[in-house]
């Protein structure tokens, strides 16, 4: 018989844990894989019953997503033979491309607003959290509670006041307005998360830096920021995920210029029948930035989930 240790899980426990994790991963990933697959299906395959797992991939959905099309008569098609691969895909269905769709624009809006508000939330959050952590702020506890209290109801509960405020201030349907709004919503989370991380960093490091000839701000940049990197990265991911996925405010406050991708994607359904492959293609592309961002910061996030419990 082999000896076993209290801290090291047994082989069977490990095996069971592995199976559970794998099962969980499959369950959560299947819908995602289904969306990605649907994006490459033809319209008929997408709504086929029973659902098709094996199919001939096509870029039809992506072409539909990015273009606006008109029906063309066979005579018109014969007059203007398709020149590019995407013209050909459209022509097969008796259509011609009349111009680009607004998806690209909406996607760029999402990037500007999502990353802009994330940057601002993390920047302001870090500075505020540092001040709360290190300085004697009058009414500190009340202020912190007040900041937290802004999260005690769903943000959409204040939709109408915000709608009126935005209209009055001329912020409706502007990038700046949306960045400001998402920053305001995310900031309380950012301050609280980051304060926890900064509290964990012993003051002695900064004091040492002060004595080593640096100013308070230089000590903050050179000593506190690198050590709070874990917290900053995970806070940034949380903020980006919220701002990126936010739907209700985006529907309410944007229309023409600053509309983000979430309210745009459902409108694809209405363009020329139920175009599920185009919707799936939009959803797939929409996932990419958050995925890339999270993977880039993955190393920090994994440590961040433990909320700084292990660093001392």
């Amino acid at each position, binding site marked *: 018989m082999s000896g076993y240790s209290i801290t090291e899980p047994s082989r069977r426990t490990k095996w069971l844990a592995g199976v559970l994790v794998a099962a969980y991963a499959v369950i959560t990933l299947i819908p995602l894989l289904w969306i990605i697959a649907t994006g490459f299906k033809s319209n008929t395959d997408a709504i086929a019953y029973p659902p098709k797992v094996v199919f001939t991939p096509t870029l039809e959905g992506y072409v539909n997503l990015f273009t606006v099309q008109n029906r063309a008569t066979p005579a018109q098609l014969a007059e203007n033979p398709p020149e590019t691969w995407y013209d050909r895909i459209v022509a097969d269905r008796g259509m011609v491309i009349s111009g680009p769709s607004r998806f690209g624009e909406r996607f760029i809006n999402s990037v500007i607003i999502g990353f802009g508000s994330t940057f601002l939330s993390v920047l302001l959050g870090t500075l505020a959290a540092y001040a709360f952590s290190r300085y004697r702020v009058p009414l500190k506890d009340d202020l912190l509670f007040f900041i937290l209290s802004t999260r005690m109801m769903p943000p959409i509960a204040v939709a109408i006041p915000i709608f009126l405020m935005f209209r009055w201030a001329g912020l409706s349907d502007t990038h700046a307005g949306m960045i400001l709004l998402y920053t305001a919503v995310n900031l309380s989370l950012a301050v609280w998360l980051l304060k926890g991380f900064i509290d964990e960093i*012993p003051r*002695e*490091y900064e*004091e*040492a*830096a*002060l*004595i*080593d*000839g*640096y*100013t308070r701000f*230089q000590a903050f940049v050179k*000593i506190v920021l*690198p*050590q709070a990197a874990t917290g900053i990265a995970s806070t940034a991911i949380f903020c980006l995920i919220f701002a990126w996925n936010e739907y209700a405010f985006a529907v309410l406050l944007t229309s023409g210029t600053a509309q983000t991708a979430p309210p745009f994607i459902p409108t694809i359904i209405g363009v020329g029948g139920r175009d599920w492959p185009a919707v799936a293609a939009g959803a797939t592309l929409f996932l990419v930035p958050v995925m890339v961002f999270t993977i880039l910061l993955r190393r920090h996030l994994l440590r961040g989930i433990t909320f700084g419990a292990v*660093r001392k």
Partner: protein
Amino acid sequence: MAEVALRGVSKRFGAVEAVADLSLTIAHGEFVVLLGPTGAGKTTTLRLIAGLERPDRGMIAIDGRDATHETPAERDVTMVFQHYSLYPHMTVRENLAFPLRSPVLRTPEETIRTRVHQVAETLQIAHKLDNRATALSGGEMQRVAIGRALVRNPAIHLMDEPLSSLDAKLRADLRVELKRIQADLGATILYVTHDQIEAMTMATRIGVLDAGRLVQVGSPREIYENPVSLYVAGRLGQPRINTLPADLFPGAPAGAATIALRPEHVRQGSGRPARVERVERLGDQTRLHLTLDGHAIVTLAEVHTDLEPGDTLPVEPQNALYFDATGARIA
């Protein structure tokens, strides 16, 4: 290197008077040790000199100028902390170079390289220069922390129990090394400890703090042989000084309430009979635990003594210290 002077410095934290009306001048090249129990104000004194705390009253002069309101960076001091001494996200080399790269010093890279190497050689950490600061043993970390002070040539080095977290052997090695470095560089050091051996071996002068007040300053020998109070007498001596009622032995001066006996003040072989309770053989010394009229006395015996528990040993004081009822020395 320069002279550092504290004049009537006080600092209060809420209801606690951490440092009270403290005046002390540390001359160029001196190694001053502050001695006192936890909470006596040793660390606060260092932090006041470093500029990490502002005094409520009093003046701090560094190199002749009033530094009371200067920032830590302007004061040109170094400080070795008891814990958390290294920047964990940097390598050993970066840690050592950090003070030299500061906007105050702006050392050229060439000079940084040679200084860091010199210091690393002195402290025998040259082979660890590219390690992460967190990938070192406790002793190595503390040597790097001391190194980060030694790369500079400040007005004064402040050290807050820098060796207390190390094991006995390393502590002894570093103690000798530190004293040698100080002598070689002619550095001015203010050093906080409650380790008697560190105080006795390294200090040119010892200052004894009691509840924020500096009660005596003097050479180690002076503090040991001529304490001004019972409190100071109790700070040094291993085994601890014995404090007994003055009338236990004949010949006490008038007004004496307490007689204090270090082991060398206990002459064995004549005087009042004491009972041997315990014999502790420590190898290099043998301690005798005696009782005399119900009072415990700890003293030293000859290393290979034949005394056994239950034996009777006559003892009498020799050049003992006498204190009055308030603890002040009277003879």
